[in-house]
């Protein structure tokens, strides 16, 4: 059976073809970076494909779908977190890989094309990061990516055209996402895989570049096969990389998702950390010169890096014989680190940016909480419509204004809800409960008018409104005065307070609190509220609990705002 399969498939021949490759001079830890890159790329492909099962590339749905992956899908946050951190891991590993190649002089003849394909792959990895960053269509992705596409627009002659091709038209929108998505999951993976195949083929053709010290004979003696000597080291590094990634994802709780992209905000965009050096470089060139920092310098550096194997023609592998190259490499690396650090430092010292960071974190939190109730079809920023304040007002206008008046609009057959349960409202109420603005047009006519002295009235109202906040923590003096006033004015004849009194009028326990108001809206005909005199419909079956909560929230918010202006 085994033979039969082997004859048809040739698995073990294939296996030994790939695995028995001799590693000249023996397996080494310094050769692990390439395979670590392949490892992380494979992880990116798998996690990316999983994300793609839940991601929707449209300006209305992208944020919602990423929200859904992050918060509603089992392990979605983890997969997304791994995919996000994977892009950073690839950048780090790619830089380490390049450093190893530079030190070992592995880019020289005959491996020029190894080097060049490698540099292109680095650009593609940057491309993955850039296109991926936009996909969640959140504030940071939206604004940071605009910087990148605007830079494209600066390129001489074809700039504007190039930009519109990449971003899919004259402005950001659906086509920007569909295109970026397509780049991210079709163009770039296809490109990277092709280059990887060429890169590996070339590597196999030329073999590894061994350490510069040992002699040819020594190297030959120490030669080991790839499997298992080198592969074991590769696997150990893969384990380390994997565990580090998991730890970062765990620690950060996955990837960040900011609030939905809002084209009307003025968000200060920052790109992913590995683009910060380019971003910082831009700051040193203003106006006309911008194109120098944005395009000319990076292009020159890129061109130099690509042509390195043709510039450096030294025969020796030893880095000490190639000091100019080592020096340049050190200088570029130091420059990149310096620029990155400068960018981080200047941001952390800028109050405006720190403040905005906190603000956007709050917004992100709020957006996620609101999305919990579902995202309206308009998508994106419309989640803020789930805001209880917003929805509370809509509900009030929809369901209450047929009878009640509110801030000048609505019906007049029930009490005016403008400034409902605020001090002025209650003061007016005590003066004339049967005025048309209060209960005059309802069946409720049993509340007598009170002609209290100003101070007494004020105390009574304060006492009642204190029930709304925290009846227990009420100032004992106010409580005493209040209870005396209730007693003196015969309130107990109809109202209950603290377990005493009649039940023909609304309870005063927790008067005007969220709970009281909610109960009233749910079922005003209960004897704790208007009982038999009630004419208001019960809303407990008409509105959901959430909707009633929103209504209450809206009314209470109005009341509290009024409270603030009184002081």
């Amino acid at each position, binding site marked *: 059976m085994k033979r039969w399969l082997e004859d048809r498939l040739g698995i073990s021949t294939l296996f*030994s073809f790939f695995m028995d490759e001799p590693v000249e001079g023996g397996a080494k830890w310094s050769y692990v970076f390439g395979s670590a890159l392949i490892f992380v790329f494979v992880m990116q492909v798998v996690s990316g494909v999983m994300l793609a099962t839940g991601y929707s590339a449209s300006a209305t749905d992208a944020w919602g*779908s990423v929200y859904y992956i992050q918060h509603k899908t*089992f*392990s979605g946050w983890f*997969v997304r977190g791994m995919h996000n951190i994977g892009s950073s891991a690839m950048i780090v590993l790619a830089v380490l890989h390049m450093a190893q190649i530079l030190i070992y002089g592995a880019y020289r003849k005959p491996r020029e094309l190894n080097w060049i394909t490698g540099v292109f792959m680095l650009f593609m990895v940057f491309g993955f990061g850039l296109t991926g960053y936009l996909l969640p269509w959140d504030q940071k992705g939206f604004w940071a990516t605009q910087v990148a596409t605007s830079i494209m627009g600066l390129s001489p002659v074809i700039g504007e055209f190039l930009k519109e091709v990449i971003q899919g038209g004259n402005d950001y929108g659906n086509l920007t996402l569909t295109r970026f998505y397509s780049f991210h999951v079709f163009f770039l993976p296809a490109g990277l895989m092709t280059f990887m195949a060429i890169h590996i083929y070339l590597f196999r053709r030329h073999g590894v570049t061994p350490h510069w010290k040992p002699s040819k004979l020594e190297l030959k*003696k120490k030669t080991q096969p790839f499997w298992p000597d080198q592969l074991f080291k590769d696997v150990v590094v893969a384990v380390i990389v994997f565990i580090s990634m998991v730890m970062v994802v765990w620690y950060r709780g996955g990837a960040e998702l900011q609030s939905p992209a809002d084209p009307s905000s003025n968000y200060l965009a920052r790109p992913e950390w590995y683009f910060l050096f380019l971003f910082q470089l831009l700051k040193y060139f203003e106006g006309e010169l911008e194109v120098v920092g944005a395009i000319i310098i990076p292009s020159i550096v890129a061109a130099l890096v690509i042509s390195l194997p043709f510039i450096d023609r030294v025969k020796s592998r030893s880095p000490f014989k190639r000091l100019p190259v080592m020096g340049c490499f050190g200088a570029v690396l130091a420059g990149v680190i310096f620029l990155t650090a400068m960018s981080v430092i200047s941001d952390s010292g800028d109050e405006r940016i720190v403040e905005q960071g906190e603000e956007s974190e709050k917004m992100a939190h709020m957006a996620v909480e609101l999305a919990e109730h579902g*995202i309206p*079809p308009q998508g994106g920023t419309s989640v803020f419509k789930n805001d209880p304040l917003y929805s509370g007002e809509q509900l009030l206008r929809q369901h209450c204004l047929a009878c009640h008046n509110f801030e000048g609009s609505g019906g007049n057959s029930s009490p005016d809800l403008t400034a409902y349960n605020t001090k002025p409202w209650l003061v007016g109420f005590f003066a004339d409960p049967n005025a048309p603005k209060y209960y005059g047009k309802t069946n409720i006519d049993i509340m007598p008018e009170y002609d209290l002295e100003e101070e007494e009235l004020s105390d009574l109202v304060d006492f009642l409104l204190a029930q709304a906040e925290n009846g227990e923590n009420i100032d004992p003096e106010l409580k005493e005065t209040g209870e005396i006033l209730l007693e003196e004015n015969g309130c107990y004849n109809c109202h209950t307070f603290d377990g005493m009194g009649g039940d023909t009028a609304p309870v005063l326990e927790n008067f005007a609190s969220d709970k009281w108001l909610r109960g009233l809206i749910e079922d005003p005909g209960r004897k704790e509220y208007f009982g038999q005199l009630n004419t208001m419909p019960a809303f407990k079956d008409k509105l959901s609990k959430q909707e009633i909560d929103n209504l209450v929230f809206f009314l209470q918010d109005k009341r509290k705002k009024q409270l603030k202006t009184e002081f």
Partner: protein
Amino acid sequence: MKKQICVEETELHTNNGRRNFLKICSVVLSSLIGIAYAVPLIRTFISPALQQTVSGSTGLLELGSISNCQVNVPMNVKIVDAKTDAWTKFPPTEIGAVWIIMNKDMKFTAFTSICPHLGCGINWDENSGKFICPCHDSIFDIEGRVLSGPSPRGMDTLETVVIDGKIFVKYQKMRLGVSDKVPA
């Protein structure tokens, strides 16, 4: 040719025990990564099968609490559908109405108010205790049977369930103008 270099005896090559150990370790470690990563990936992949992703028009719609019903008095309830599709929630809209009738055993019947003839809205006439379609005067009894008029079949019943004192209905539109009740 190349293979020969490998098979060539060198100091390190001779140690087959060490090499086997490395082979085992490599396989075990990479399998561990594979398994550790596969678990969240698979969980993500099968997640929609374990959750409710679309609710609303395809599922049961809530009509309200049963305490509102009186025995043998048809009650008209508007069907408000707020479909939720994964992350998107569509605003609630009235998509139709049903007549609900509770019999004395507290069993519920729900009729769609759409007339099987040509789709007008059927009314309940309290005086005669009959359902009447105003368009072409089809008349139905309280159990939905055609008494007179052009309707090709009786009123269409809808599936109902009572959960926690609330009535839910599976709202469906039926083909009009035919004698069999088939979903449209």
